């Protein structure tokens, strides 16, 4: 116990180790947050969801922080609704059967670009007579546009850019430019100021009501942006963290521990067991590692847990089993093993209580340093199109971006966000592993 404490204290003397530990703790925190706020089934549902889940988001929207890097500020997306009070609604009635519903929303627009689209979703309750709404738009300089007059059913959707009547009334196919442009400017530039959306509705029945949702799709969305399917990239970025950590840690712990145990057993018993282990290692050297993973992924299943098991299985009998073996051969002859044998310790006891614990200083740095390679292995498989079909992972995002030509079309955020997270993860574990190696194997400390 004191040994561990000493090692930990020694670790804190290395700035790189502190940085690595901080990164890993941060990633663990993100994982915990992701797992608590988004349950597994919910994450899968959202990630697999189509327009019905993500209809509010614009396609290919860059993240909000994009505005920090550009002088031409782009509009940020938002959505408001009457149900949760973000859009004001007043109901007035003189007649028991007829009531008027006034819905108002005004917002400041200070951007240099035009939005993508604006959509109104109406839901209403009635038995026979459709409620009626008229929508108008007031610009900062006081001009008023009549947008739509329509009867609404239980669920009605009004897309500003796709309404033929509005298109012909404005005499343009660019509705957003017509509604936002400054009439005095020679080139289309948006007029900055407070815009107002006015919806006046009328219901013709007792108990009939109207609810509205106003979705403003700008050029930017949230902290992570959206992809081709309007999915918020925050979901895979957040949820990819526990998956990447679980994959990397399980694979490296499994591989390192099993390699060590097998090497110890082989060396201790010697004879045909040792010979067999060495022959398996030689055969494994011939087997194409990545090709086997690709084959299983293509032919059988792309489940991440199957890939994990396979990666462990193929990595156990690698070159490191030979390294461990050569060290075990030496420690097998040392006097404390002789003593254990003399008092009659059983073979398993000697292997697990005497041989293996001595190797832990070698094991831990190797284990920590091998985490990044497994994290990147998962991403590599995803980049080849063999990522888990249902789970949101970082590699999947990179793969989606690549197949959609994100780099050609200058949608850099789509590739950069998961790539930076991968890099941070890899760097954190690599830094800690290097520092641990220097602390636990003092032979290298001076070098």
């Amino acid at each position: 116990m004191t040994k561990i404490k000493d090692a930990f204290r020694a670790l804190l003397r290395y700035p790189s180790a502190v940085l690595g530990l901080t990164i890993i703790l941060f990633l663990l925190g993100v994982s915990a947050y992701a797992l608590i706020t988004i349950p597994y089934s919910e994450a899968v549902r959202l990630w697999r969801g189509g327009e019905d889940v993500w209809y509010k988001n614009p396609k290919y929207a860059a993240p909000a922080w994009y505005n920090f890097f550009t002088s031409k500020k782009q509009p940020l997306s938002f959505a408001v609704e009457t149900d949760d009070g973000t859009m004001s609604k007043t109901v007035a009635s003189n007649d028991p059967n007829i009531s008027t519903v006034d819905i108002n929303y005004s917002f400041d627009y200070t951007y240099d670009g035009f939005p993508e689209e604006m959509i109104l979703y109406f839901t209403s309750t009635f038995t026979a007579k459709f409620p009626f709404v008229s929508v108008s738009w007031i610009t900062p300089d006081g001009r008023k546009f009549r947008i739509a007059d329509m009867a609404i059913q239980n669920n009605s959707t009004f897309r500003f850019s796709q309404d033929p009547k509005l298109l012909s009334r404005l005499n343009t196919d660019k509705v957003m430019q017509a509604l936002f442009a400054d009439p005095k400017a020679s080139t289309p530039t948006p007029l900055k100021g407070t815009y107002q959306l006015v919806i006046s509705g009328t219901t013709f029945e007792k108990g009939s009501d109207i609810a509205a949702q106003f979705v403003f799709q700008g050029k930017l969305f949230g902290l992570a942006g959206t992809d081709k399917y309007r999915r918020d990239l925050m979901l895979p970025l957040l949820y990819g963290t526990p998956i990447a950590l679980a994959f990397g840690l399980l694979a490296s712990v499994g591989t390192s521990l099993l390699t060590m145990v097998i090497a110890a057993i082989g060396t201790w018993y010697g004879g045909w067991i040792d010979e067999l282990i060495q022959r398996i290692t030689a055969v494994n050297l011939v087997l194409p590692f990545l090709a086997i993973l690709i084959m299983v992924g293509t032919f059988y299943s792309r489940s991440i847990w199957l890939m994990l098991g396979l990666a462990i299985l193929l990595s156990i009998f690698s070159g490191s089993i030979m390294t461990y073996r050569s060290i075990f051969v030496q420690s097998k002859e040392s006097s404390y093993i002789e003593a254990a044998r003399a008092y009659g310790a059983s073979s398993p006891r000697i292997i697990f209580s005497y041989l293996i614990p001595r190797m832990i200083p070698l094991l831990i740095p190797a284990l920590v340093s091998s985490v990044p390679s497994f994290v990147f292995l998962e991403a590599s498989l995803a980049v080849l199109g063999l990522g888990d079909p249902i789970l949101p992972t970082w590699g999947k995002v990179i793969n989606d971006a690549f197949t959609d030509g994100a780099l050609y079309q200058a949608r850099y955020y789509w590739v950069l966000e998961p790539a930076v997270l991968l890099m941070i993860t890899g760097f954190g574990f690599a830094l800690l592993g290097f520092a641990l190696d220097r602390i636990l194997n003092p032979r290298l400390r001076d070098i």
Partner: protein
Amino acid sequence: MATETLATPAPETPLVKKSFANSTFLRLVRYTALRLFTLAITVVIGVYLTILIANMGGYVDTIMRNEVRDNITQSIASNPAYRNLQPAVREKLIQEKIANEVERLGLNQPFVVRSFRYLTNALTLNLGRAINMTSDEGSKEVRLILLERLPATLLLTGSSELIIFFASVFIALTLSRKYGSWFDKLTIALSPTSAAPPWFYGIFFILIFAAILRILPFGGLVDSPPPVNKVAYGLNVLKHLILPASSVIISSIFLSIYTWRTFFLIYSSEDYVEMAKAKGLPPKDVERRYILRPTLPTIITNFALLVITLWTGFTITETVFLWPGLGITLYRAIGFYDTPVIVGSTIIYAYLLALTMFLLDFVYALVDPRVKVGSGSSQ
């Protein structure tokens, strides 16, 4: 993977007392035969396992059979020439065509029989014909499909791996002489960068040099249409090579330097090196005769292992850069369930590996006078 360890040759065994002049020769023959035998067994088992996996225990057969049935049923249903046939006649025609196609693919034989045919063909390097893939020239010969892609792969793997190897050995040698210097510390600090695979750096390089600066191509081997002039063609290929090769180099050079530097440092703290320095030998001589000489077996082992990995290509890097090499071909072969191509690619690697392992033993004996071929254990 991330923690690169240098492959060290097997520890030399104590010298065996020489009794007869020809006992050395006998021991050599016996050792060689045993070594060849174990290596051959290893190759056979490795290749057979690959064949079994490439078929998923008969699962791929089912996929292929269903695919054949779908394709033929569809092609007959959509062919206007067969539209007026009686349903029974058409059904017969479909069954006949399916039987033909199944026979062409060899699916009428049980997989066990086919697997041994694949194995014997592979071992005799009779690579045979691909099932679905064709080379760009239109040939179905596996040999031609692989040969066509070999130059592109060797260009990429060869240029990058050789630069990594020689640059890291020479830089490491220099660093080991003046360790603790600013540049040495920088290399140590940068060595964790090798945690990321080449394609990862590839993404950043494409982003910076192709997408933003627009000075280098996004990927591919040559421009389309390719330049007619031979010199212009070569230069164009080199221009396309820069990004993939640099991503491979960047992703492993720092760790490689670090590993070699540590290795050289361990050897340069030996007593005989101190002695040589004390004698006042010039640093060049100390380096060449007292550090490089004893480490030569390790350097050669690593170089030999590197040369055979050139064959495999970098599947993912080639995919990201659309580099038409062997890695991408293997990936496509798997997508086509093309067992002959998968097996062909594996057997060549297996043979190269076995041959290298075999020759290395003799090379050690040549460069290291302490090692004797076949003395002691046969590991």
